[in-house]
């Protein structure tokens, strides 16, 4: 299994995530930018992501919801800022309602995702930046809840594919 590297940069209110995938850049890029594919992995299990609309271009956005095991629905959107095809994209992440109206009570984050080819696959870097320490903390609070939701991770499934 590939190792995920997490780095906290509290001074700059950033969290960095680095991960290698055993697939070519073109394929990995597609899984991050195609709504049908995003729906298949984006929501941490047992949640499921469902796309309402996707317009992957600068100024466009991805509007989706995450459906929980009890049927609870959380709407979110990702507004694309800069896109460099097969290299990187940046976007503003926010909670919203079904109509896409942004919920300002929850902190949003700014994402920069970059892709680079390695000898055996693709390295993906995700830099998440927050506006303030308070927003970062609010994210942590929410993350704590999500942590509970993910008590049953899909490790078993992963092991099956590795055997």
């Amino acid at each position, binding site marked *: *299994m*590939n190792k*995920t590297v*997490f780095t*906290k940069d509290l001074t700059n209110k950033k*969290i960095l*995530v680095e*991960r290698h*995938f*055993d*697939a070519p850049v073109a*394929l*990995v890029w*597609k*899984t991050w930018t195609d709504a049908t*594919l995003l729906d*298949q*992995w*984006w*929501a*941490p*299990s047992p949640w499921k992501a469902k796309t309402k609309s996707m317009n992957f271009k600068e100024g466009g956005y991805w509007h989706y919801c995450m459906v929980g095991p009890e049927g609870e629905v959380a709407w979110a959107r990702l507004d694309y800022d800069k896109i460099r095809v097969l290299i990187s994209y940046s976007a503003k992440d926010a909670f919203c309602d079904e109509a896409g109206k942004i919920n300002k009570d929850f902190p949003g984050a700014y994402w920069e995702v970059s892709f680079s080819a390695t000898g055996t696959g693709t390295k993906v870097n*995700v830099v998440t930046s927050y506006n303030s320490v308070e927003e970062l*903390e*609010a*994210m*942590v*609070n929410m*993350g*704590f*809840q*999500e*942590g509970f939701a*993910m008590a049953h*991770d*899909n*490790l078993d*499934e*992963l092991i099956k*594919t590795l055997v």
Partner: protein
Amino acid sequence: METRRDVFQAIADPTRRDILNMLTQKSLNLNAIAENFEMSRPAISQHIKILTECGLIVIDQKGRERYCQVQPEKLSAVADWLEPFRKMWENRFNQLDNLLTQLKEDKDE
């Protein structure tokens, strides 16, 4: 939203972080803690109550005085506050690995 009592809620407030910092130096009674803040004693008392409910501190009765003491093992959970974030990404990435394996197989067929 229902009230949650967990370590992350405890550290989400700057006053509570300050109280915790003080208590990691030594156990203090409520008056000694309140002296360090501009806010009212009941307000401090409320923060102490939340910290107690979150399990980060315990109240130790010594004679007529009630001392607040930190629970170090709970604090270590705070130190690793990134853990849920880490879990979320690990979970996502495992799913992405599966998807990529599947997509590669589809292509080969």
